[in-house]
């Protein structure tokens, strides 16, 4: 039978362990983030080349890209 609520000094579980203190639930953060959710277009092409906008918002171009696409940084989350 699923655990409805179980509280011990070292662990908290509820709702069939869907909520468990030994898991890491991702949360939005303004600092100390560990990865990012990309929120829009993050590639562009021009002159046969490619611009990739990394999750931090930095442009990563190959040697031939000659466009002016401007992407944006993703939303940072922490665990």
């Amino acid at each position, binding site marked *: 039978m699923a655990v409805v609520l179980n509280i011990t000094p070292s662990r*908290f579980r509820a709702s069939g362990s869907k909520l468990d*203190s030994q898991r890491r639930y991702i*949360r939005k953060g303004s600092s100390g983030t560990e990865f990012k959710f990309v*929120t829009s277009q993050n590639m562009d*092409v021009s002159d046969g080349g*490619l611009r990739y906008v990394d999750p931090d918002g930095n442009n990563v171009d190959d*040697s031939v890209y000659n466009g002016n696409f401007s992407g944006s940084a993703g939303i940072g989350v922490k665990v």
Partner: protein
Amino acid sequence: MSKFVADNSRIQITETVSGVDQTVFDTNDDMPHIVGTSQINNQTISFAAMSQTEHQTVQKWVEIPGYGYQYIWHYRWAIDPAENSSIIDIANVPTDEDNNTIDVDFIVVQATGTRTVNGKDPRFNQALPSTIPSKTFSFQGSVLLEASGEVNGASWMRRIVSIYRSGAKIKMKVQESIARLDRDIEFYKFNAVNPSAESKFPHIADTASTYSLNITLFFGKFRQ
């Protein structure tokens, strides 16, 4: 050690790791969750065949050791540069119970697709490399579909697709960028029947590609 606090509309769980309390769940934080999905089947992405133009024809006499003066035809054909882009609506952003568009924060795209028309590299009798896996894949933002490079490795062709929100619509933007690519061929007059035609890119008529994707969109928010 774990700590659970439920107080004044807030639930917080902390876990002590190496003597440091770490928050593992907190309803005061913005936590990503999915508020809706949308399924789009048999979505087609098409790229037309490239074109080429004859740029230079030089006929000259050159001295070849052992053969004396020979008549040479020098032909240069080039892939026509092109920047192609199209945007279509593929879905609506989900609405709430009052029929207002939900202000979603992110979209996760899950897709399964096949390339139904295998475009060829105009230089070779082989398909353009495709980055689409044969199984289900996920992405946010954009994904590279096809690319090709020159002999020195520099890119001359890219095909990409982007899926993103614009207002109450989900847009699919298909882009193709083709740089000029030259092909220089020299013929001796005696060994070419139709040197202009023989110096063309041989597979340019087969450079069109088509994809068919089944797409699931997951609409996410950080806070209700």
